[in-house]
Structures are given as C-alpha cells and as structure tokens.
C-alpha cells in the first residue's frame, strides 16, 4: 500500500500501524470529523456558477462578511443589480449557517398580489373557493431552515405588515386557520431597488426596512470589478467542460474586450454569453471577432484579433474572421439572411453559400 499515495496524489490517506490503540484511533477519528467540518465550510463558500468566484477586493470582502454573518441568526438584506448573484449569496449564507432545514427562495416580484398571502402563509382547506385541501406556505416549508425573499421591494404593502409580524413574533397563521404556528426561520431578503428611497416615498414600511436591514450585504456590479471577469470566465468554461464536454478558450484580445464591457446583466449575462459561444464554437479559441458587437466594439483591431492566433494558415485565419463577421451579422439581423447580407454588403446568394460552406447554424 506504500505506493498508493504516489498513484493517487489527490487522496487523503492516513496510516494506522501496529496494534489497534484507542488513542491513535481517536486521534484519526477527530481529524476525520475536523476535516469534514472544514470541507463543508469550504464547499459552502465555493458556491456555484461564478457567483462568489472572484479576486476583486469587493468579492473577497463579501466572502469574508458571509463567513461572519452566516453562523448568526441575523436577518440579512442583500443588495445588488439584476444578475449579480443575490440568490447565490443567500444560498452561501444558508449553507454556511449550519441550519438543517430547507433553503426556500421566493421571488416576491413573481407572485400575483391576490395569491401572495396563501403562497407565503399557506391555507386551510375551504379557506377560499379553490382551497380544496390544506397547503403549507413557503414560510412553513422553510421552518428550521432559511427563507429567501427575493425582490422584497415588490412585496405588496398588505403583506409587508404580515411579514413584519412574522419577524417580530416568529409565528404564522395559515389563511383560513386559527392556529398560531411557531416557526424557526432565518430570513434573508434581497433587492435591486433602493429600499431607503422607497421608505421615504412611503411605498416600503419603515419598520420592516429596519427589521430587514440588520446586516446589509452589497454585491458590486460586474462592471466595477473587471478583474473578476477572467476568473469568472475560467470557472464558467470549466463547468461547461464538465457538463457539456466543450473546451472553449478566449484570446487575450477577446478577454480584454470582455473586461472593458459594462455587463448590464452582470454575471448572468456573462454566463449566458459563454454558454452561447460554447454552442457555436464548442472546441475552439474565441477571438474578439466572435464576440457580439456590443462587447467587442466595431474596431478593426478586434476583428483582426484572430490573426494573432496559433499556427494555422492565413486562409484559416481569414475564414475564422469571416465566420465571426457572418455570425455577428446574423445575430444583429435576428437570423434573417437577406438583412445580414445587407449588413455585410454582399449578395444574399453569396452569404447563403458561405453559411453552407462554413456550416454556420
């Protein structure tokens, strides 16, 4: 067995030699559980898809704050633009909290006002016309765990007061029920809106705001942390390689263009772009010319980026540039070939022939 560590360098081997003694066994058992505790914590902070991946000071600070707030019972208000990963942060807090119950996410912006109370608090059979059976609400389902109220700014005023009561008294009442049900909840909320401003405008309750804003966490938009774009890209590409067996990589110029872009859709937009690029070019090098015009801009240097690449022939380079330009034109024209031909200033027949030859889909 002495060669095992050399054969499997990733493995965590321990050796227990000589007669079995309670001391040496106990030491190993302690190490095993300590290691599990460490791994669990590490994993809980290594959240999925590029979410808390990053090297910027803002993300490092965020990871640090999550580590501090997670084990507490404090209500957390997560603020960030759309696509910045608010739910990911919420999940990371839940996973690192040690709470054994479920993580339940509720998008307050997606529930019609009339269904809100039933959705959140549940209902008893016969509470209203369609209530043919008892239904547990999201708050009750999260009992022992964490409820994540996304887009809390969209919560109707009538529900804000009911939520406040839950936060104060830690009990719920199903719609149509008389029983007060005690619940043990960690409440996390998120918004892309300025709740302080809404509070001043009278559209968000002041008392609820202060109840939620116990521990605010801000996620910086991606445009303010361009140094995170390469590491996020690397992580997203790695995940696609595992899930879809693609192997794309990005040229330096393409990465520079991506770092300079303002990413209004944040990490979600980056993830979507990489997924799309890995579909159209699953095993190649992504040049700046392959990026959408909005990202690479229209400068000729970006279009010439492919010339820097690898050792393939001039003909291949030119073909790659041509493919990139055709794809962009098709993107801009929503796939209408005649319109793309106009953009490229070539005849429709010529473009159709090139699409066929390059097998552009």
């Amino acid at each position, binding site marked *: *067995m002495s060669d*095992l560590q050399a*054969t*499997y360098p*990733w*493995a*965590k*081997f*321990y*050796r*227990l*030699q*000589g*007669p*079995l003694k*309670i001391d040496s*066994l*106990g030491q*190993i*058992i302690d*190490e*095993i*559980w300590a*290691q*599990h505790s460490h*791994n669990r914590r590490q994993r809980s902070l290594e959240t999925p898809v590029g979410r808390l991946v990053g090297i910027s000071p803002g993300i490092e600070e965020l990871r640090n704050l999550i580590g501090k707030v997670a084990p507490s019972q404090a209500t957390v208000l997560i603020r960030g633009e759309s696509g910045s990963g608010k739910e990911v942060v919420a999940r990371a807090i839940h996973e690192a909290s040690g709470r*054994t119950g479920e993580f339940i996410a509720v998008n307050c912006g997606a529930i019609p006002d009339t269904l809100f109370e039933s959705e959140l608090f549940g209902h008893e059979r016969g509470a209203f016309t369609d209530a043919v059976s008892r239904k547990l609400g999201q708050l009750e389902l999260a009992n022992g765990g964490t409820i994540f109220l996304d887009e809390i700014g969209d919560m109707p005023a009538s529900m804000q007061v009911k939520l406040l009561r839950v936060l104060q008294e830690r009990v719920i009442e199903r719609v149509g029920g008389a029983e007060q049900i005690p619940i043990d909840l960690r409440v996390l909320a998120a918004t892309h809106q300025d709740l302080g401003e809404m509070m001043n405008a009278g559209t968000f309750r002041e008392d609820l705001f202060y109840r939620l804003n116990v521990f605010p966490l801000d996620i910086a938009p991606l445009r303010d942390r361009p140094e995170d774009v390469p590491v996020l890209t690397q992580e997203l590409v790695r995940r696609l390689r595992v899930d879809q067996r693609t192997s794309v990589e990005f040229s330096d110029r393409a990465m520079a263009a991506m770092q300079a872009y303002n990413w209004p859709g944040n990490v979600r937009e980056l993830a979507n772009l990489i997924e799309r690029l890995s579909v159209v070019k699953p095993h190649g090098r992504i040049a700046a010319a392959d990026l959408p015009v909005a990202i690479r801009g229209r400068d000729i240097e970006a279009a010439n980026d492919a010339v820097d690449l690898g050792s393939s022939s001039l003909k291949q380079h030119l073909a790659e540039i041509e493919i990139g330009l055709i794809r962009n034109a098709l993107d801009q024209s929503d796939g209408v070939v005649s319109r793309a031909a106009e953009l490229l200033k070539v005849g429709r027949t010529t473009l159709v022939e090139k699409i066929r030859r390059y097998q552009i889909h």
Partner: protein
Amino acid sequence: MSERVILVIDDELERAEALKGMIEFMDSPAVRISVPDEWQNQLGEARAAAVFLANGLQADIVDKIVREIGDIDPNIPIVLMEDNADE
C-alpha cells in the same frame, strides 16, 4: 440529508467488528462492509465520512475502492490499516 458514516471495509468478521465497535465507542457511526467489492451497494443511502481499509485486502480491490472514492468525493479520508493493527 443522508447520514455520514465511517466505513470499515474488511472481510474478516471478528477484526472488523472490533474496529467498528471502537469507532462507535467514540460516538462515530460506523458500518462494516463485508464484501469489499460491493462497498457502495452495502453503504446504501448513507454517505462515507471516511473509509478504513483492512490490512490484507487484495491490491486490485484497494485500487478499485480508492478510485471509486475519488469519483464520489476525493476529500474522503482513507485510513490504511497496516501490519498488526488488528492485534
């Protein structure tokens, strides 16, 4: 979430039960795997917290188990029982 348990993979009943008993004495759940080649089936719904491999298991079986552990979670500790650890 399924429980994490410590596996004792050993086809020698008496030795395995002695080790399992000591691990359980330390408040750690343990499961004895009597057919090393089928450890995953015998584990069932539980998850491995660590794997104790008895001295004397065939090298190819040990290799197979280590590879399979790596596929599941490379962080799972593997404890190699050596020499007279069973005495």
